[in-house]
């Protein structure tokens, strides 16, 4: 078990390092940040001074090593726009994003899992068809379309809720619903098929044959087994709490990490983009790692046998 955790952790670190390296070289090779930020017709002395100040005159590999060295000391660099610490710029947005993604996660889990379980237990009845119709719709309607439709009906037509901004809790309702519905659909679809697979197993028939109450068969035997694959998806959703709302935040002008990313990208603010990439990759990889370890604990067969990574 220990070596399993160790090799998983090693892989997780490797992934994070690869993303950082990839991002560093891609972002640095796409043009001179000095010119991008100061504009091309800035005086040459100003550009030179800017390059010197930000260490852009050093060779790329030196900048890269310096960047990694600063990282080990917890220094993510400074925003090239306003000179503030990049981590401060990013971290002050995290609670704002969590304010909509955490409630949305609760909606996803409650509606998604119960819907999927119900659909599987009442297979081929109207309950199943309703859940599946909801799941397919939620799966194929892009989140920005869903968000804009909600905005059009609830805010513009009925005037019930504000359409954009983050001034009060009422502003958070539509983004939460948008995020929650789409995720619940994915989870319902997944839970249903996991549950159906479990219900087809011989041990369920054994349980019924030895005279157990159907309720007991479902709660004691079916649900725990179906929970294992469902856990992967929930883990993935937890991993995307910080950055899973890029599009929805843009739709509703919600000032979270996602909007910061879009504006930092538009402003060519390298260090802030790097910091967000790091944050997102670390949260995703960590939650994948935790899911893998929990998987290993719950299901000993997987410890040695699993060759591939977790599916997303």
């Amino acid at each position, binding site marked *: 078990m220990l070596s399993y955790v160790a090799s998983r952790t090693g892989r997780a670190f490797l992934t994070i390092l690869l993303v950082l390296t*990839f991002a560093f070289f*891609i972002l640095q090779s796409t043009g001179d940040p000095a010119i991008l930020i100061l504009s091309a017709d800035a005086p040459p002395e100003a550009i030179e001074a800017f390059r010197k100040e930000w260490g852009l005159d050093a060779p790329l590999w030196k900048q890269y090593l310096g960047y990694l060295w600063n990282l080990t000391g917890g220094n993510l660099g400074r925003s090239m726009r306003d000179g503030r610490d990049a981590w401060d710029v990013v971290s002050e947005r995290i609670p704002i994003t969590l304010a909509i993604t955490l409630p949305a996660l609760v909606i996803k889990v409650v509606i998604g899992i119960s819907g999927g379980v119900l659909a599987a237990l009442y297979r081929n009845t109207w309950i199943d068809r309703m859940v599946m119709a909801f799941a397919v719709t939620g799966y194929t309607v*892009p989140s920005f379309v869903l968000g*804009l439709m909600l905005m059009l009906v609830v805010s513009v037509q009925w005037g019930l809720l504000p359409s954009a901004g983050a001034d009060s809790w009422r502003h958070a309702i539509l983004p939460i619903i948008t995020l929650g519905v789409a995720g619940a659909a994915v989870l319902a679809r997944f839970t249903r098929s996991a549950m159906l697979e479990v219900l087809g197993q011989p041990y369920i028939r054994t349980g019924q044959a030895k005279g157990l109450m159907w309720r007991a068969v479902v709660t004691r035997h079916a649900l725990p087994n179906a929970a294992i694959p469902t856990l992967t998806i929930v883990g993935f959703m937890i991993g995307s709490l910080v950055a899973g709302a*890029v599009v929805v935040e843009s739709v509703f002008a919600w000032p979270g990490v996602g909007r910061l990313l879009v504006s930092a*990208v538009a402003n*060519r603010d390298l260090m802030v983009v790097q910091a967000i*990439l790091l944050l997102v990759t670390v949260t995703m990889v960590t939650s994948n790692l935790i899911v893998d370890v929990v998987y290993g604990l719950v299901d000993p067969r997987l410890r040695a046998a699993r060759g591939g*990574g*977790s599916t997303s």
Partner: protein
Amino acid sequence: MTDATLPAVADAGPGAVRRFFKAYPPFVILALVWIALTIVVAIFADLLKPYDFKALDLRDRLAEPVFMNGTFRHILGSDELGRDVLSRLIESIRMSLTIAFASTLITAAIGVGLGFLAAHFRGWVEQLVLGAIDFMAAIPFLIVALAVLAFFGNSLTLFILLMGMHGWERIARITRGLAIAAQEQGYASAAREIGASPWRVYGMHILPNIASTLIVAMTLNIPEVILLESGLSFLGLGVQPPLTSLGNMVGYGREYIQTAPWILLAPAIVITLTTLAVSILGDWLRDRFDPTLR
């Protein structure tokens, strides 16, 4: 192949009609009709659009569509520069479909190529490919794509290439598994024994035999690419003006949601129906043709 997979309903009452709908559920037929329609629109876009999609009509700005008491001059209305929404919609369908198909072909080429490499060489090559697959599955693709796009600027070729990076790991995983299984079968070793080159064995013998599963996987990739493309274009980081795509139109229409909701309604409906139709088709194809499912 087609006859063998048709469900056996010999004793069904009215016979042919019922059998037909059992094999081709109405939803699937509707999905096929919609997909065919969008493809026709994409191919004949130049003949179908009433105006040039970039043409301004400043005297007729924000004209309402026919179904909102507008005139037939602009059937789906016009935007705030007086550009015809229907013409832009047709052009956008062509752009979005082109990106979806082109990038899915790239995805398939990368996935099949790497899958075959892993299956053929095994050893460290396979480990490398598996590592790359794990890496792809672990990174937040949308975020990385966003960063790459913004810093590389607005080249359409680059955008299609980047979209082609999405989802290759699934194709590679499937291809590797199927190719390893196929090597054990008689036909592949027979071809090898009579001296066929690896290119021939993989290209002429193994690929056609695993094609049905791959086509299903590719079909399921298309709606994801459409969503990804429209999402990025919506954020203003995908297809750039003066070119237009469905997500682009929605993003632009967002500014006018209060005064002119028709600008975003038409492309939003088209995106939704198209991803829905392709998903229904993909699920149906998978149930019918994927031998790995029961």
